[in-house]
């Protein structure tokens, strides 16, 4: 639910506004959840203190990210709840990753430890209903380490690409 809430309003006004100027943008804005190549989508919940800054630096360094990843800015990974991760999967994503600070370096002291445990909880939930637990994963990195962010996203993309598609009821 929240995953769609983050993405859908961002996609719709952009499509509506640019539809007169750019026809391609309107086409992209029409599909709310999976606008890209149609292969797979990975939602990356990024901590604003480190992982999002690392993504920013990676973009400035012109590192190429897989087109499947969608970045969602979080104030801290401690904000990520099991509902964020599960509803991202239920509403169209094939994988969800949480990217936070290195252990012990959370800006809010223990937000990333909570995120690690919540991700473990969601993995167990997924396992209990027969879904691969690798679809949800936690990565830690520092703000000054853009290659690690790029490597994490590529790793996630590779793992999700090797899994069978997620059947949705």
């Amino acid at each position, binding site marked *: 639910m929240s995953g769609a809430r983050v993405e859908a309003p961002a996609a719709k006004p952009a499509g509506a506004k640019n539809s007169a100027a750019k026809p391609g943008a309107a086409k992209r804005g029409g599909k709310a959840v999976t606008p890209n190549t149609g292969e797979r989508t990975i939602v990356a919940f990024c901590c604003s203190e480190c992982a999002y800054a690392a993504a920013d630096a990676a973009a400035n360094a012109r590192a190429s990210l897989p087109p499947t990843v969608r970045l969602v800015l979080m104030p801290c990974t401690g904000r990520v709840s099991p*509902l964020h991760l599960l509803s991202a999967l*239920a509403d169209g994503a094939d994988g969800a990753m949480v990217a936070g600070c290195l252990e012990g370096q959370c800006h809010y002291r223990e937000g990333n430890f909570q995120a690690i445990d919540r991700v473990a909880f969601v993995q167990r939930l997924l396992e209990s*209903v027969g879904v691969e637990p690798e679809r949800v994963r936690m990565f830690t990195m520092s703000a000054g380490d853009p290659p690690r962010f790029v490597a994490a996203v590529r790793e996630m993309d590779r793992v999700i690409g090797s899994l069978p598609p997620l*059947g949705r*009821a």
Partner: protein
Amino acid sequence: MPLTHRGREIVGRLPHDVAIGRGIGCEIVRHEELCVGCGTCAKNCPSGASRRGDTFDVNQLLSAPADSRRGALGAALQRIARHAPARVIAVPERVTVFRTIFYDEEECLGCGACARNCPVEAIEARPAVVPAAPAAESTS
């Protein structure tokens, strides 16, 4: 489980005839479908009747009402599920909610501390049904 210090204090404040036996207070009604599993009731329970478990039954998510957060989580889980959740899963230490709360009616004193402290009002403390006879005596 024997009474804690706080439990003894509560029993000591009551009139003697009410404090005899177990029925010292309210009838506790738990609404399991509203419970979020935070364990606040267990933290505030003076007698140890409520206990916060380390496990979680996934089927609790599916039976929660649809407009609650647990219900939303259950709906999301059901959409991607490949088979019915059959297992009880262990909960990591720092996940504070999503725990099964065990409630032992035999141990309960009926003090209502759990109902007062429940953040989602999943516990109701109703007036006691047992001491009806002493109440009739005192009014006459």
